[in-house]
């Protein structure tokens, strides 16, 4: 027996309606990445994380637990779990996120903010007021819950006088830029991914990579939904990296399996393993630009001695002036 879609989806929808996220994070967990970066509160232009990177360690721990439940007798009790979850947020009780993983994903957000600062982009942050975009509930077709949540997010922007948003992941970019306008009358918001903002800026790399061969795993959502294909390549090339393209790339990129992780962990794993094989065949350092792709590919590669990094990890070395010791980076 697979995980019961009805109850798993029911829990996600209940959480979105009651707790404003499919997986509620504490304000501290959601905003800790910004500590020490001196990002102003609010402003006309804000960085918007949509909690995607912050959610990964919790989702990862939960997905790992769920994969044990898949095909077990425990699935019979998911209906009861959904009932209990209406009163008590069960997710944090079911799985504890790994502190090293929390730090890793928070660092990616710090990288992105530092890159924007290096490009002299003036931006603020909504801190604890920020919300998840509702992407998963939209993709699963629960439109009434999604629309109600989308209005909450748009009201947040209006209340704070935000007119321009810089996103950090493909799913939030797609929701805010292409999906919300279909459902919200009078929706007006400029939405750009940080990769687009950086590519349009005049930011110049400091240390330039020499002998760095990267293999890009394009996100389906960036490439096919939002037409973001060239920007990551331009930024990496400008920093001196050589780009190797896998068998399926750009607009024809191959999915990482992540979108069905919550419902069919076994199938998601198989897709990710197939993708890892395609990427590894090029021999380059694998680069992802979506938190869901990143975690799925990392999990699929964990026993294969294959490293996968977020694109921001390379970009921050080249563009932000940070003097971290970096593999294969020379000035």
């Amino acid at each position: 027996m697979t995980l019961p879609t009805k109850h798993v989806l029911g829990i996600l929808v209940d959480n979105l309606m009651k707790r404003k996220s499919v997986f509620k994070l504490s304000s501290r967990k959601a905003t800790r990445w910004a500590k020490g970066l001196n990002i102003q509160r609010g402003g006309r232009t804000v960085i918007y994380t949509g909690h995607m990177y912050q959610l990964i360690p919790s989702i990862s721990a939960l997905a790992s637990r769920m994969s044990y439940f898949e095909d077990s007798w425990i699935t019979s009790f998911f209906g009861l779990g959904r009932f209990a979850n209406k009163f008590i947020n069960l997710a944090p009780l079911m799985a504890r996120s790994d502190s090293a993983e929390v730090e890793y994903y928070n660092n990616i957000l710090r990288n992105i903010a530092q890159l924007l600062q290096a490009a002299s982009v003036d931006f603020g942050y909504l801190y604890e007021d920020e919300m998840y975009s509702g992407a998963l509930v939209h993709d699963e077709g629960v439109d009434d819950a999604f629309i109600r949540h989308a209005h909450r997010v748009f009201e947040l922007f209006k209340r704070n006088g935000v007119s321009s948003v810089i996103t950090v992941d493909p799913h939030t970019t797609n929701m805010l830029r292409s999906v919300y306008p279909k459902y919200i009358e009078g929706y007006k918001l400029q939405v750009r991914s940080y990769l687009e903002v950086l590519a349009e800026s005049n930011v110049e790399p400091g240390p330039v990579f020499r002998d760095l061969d990267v293999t890009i795993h394009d996100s389906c959502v960036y490439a096919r939904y939002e037409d973001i294909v060239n920007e990551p390549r331009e930024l990496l090339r400008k920093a001196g990296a050589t780009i190797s393209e896998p068998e399926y790339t750009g607009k024809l990129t191959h999915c990482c399996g992540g979108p069905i992780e919550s419902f069919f962990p076994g199938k998601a794993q198989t897709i990710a393993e197939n993708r890892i094989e395609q990427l590894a065949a090029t021999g380059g350092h694998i680069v992802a630009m979506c938190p869901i792709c990143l975690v799925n590919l990392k999990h699929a590669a964990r026993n294969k001695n294959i490293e996968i990094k977020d694109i921001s990890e390379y970009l921050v070395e080249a563009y932000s002036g940070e003097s971290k010791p970096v593999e294969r980076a020379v000035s």
Partner: protein
Amino acid sequence: MARANSTFLDTMRAAESFNASACMNCGVCTAVCPMGIDILPRQLFRYVIIGIEEKVLEKQETIFSCLMCKMCEQNCPADVKIAENVRTLRGYINRHVYRLSRN
């Protein structure tokens, strides 16, 4: 023998987000699907167009297995909005089978 369900047919015809009339059954979508889903989308969409609800509902797991990655849509010669069609089917199941929607 499978029978057409007129309520299902009317609901799906009224759904502006579902449109598979341009599908010419070429099979490119099936050939490029990273999930290897053999019924999605062309055969499934045919069941929707002729209103065979029971055949659609037999494939709930398949419908929710779709990655929404749009590899099929990118390669579709008839420009069928396949991902949105699948999402609409999920919406139908959510409302009429799972009772998840609130309106």
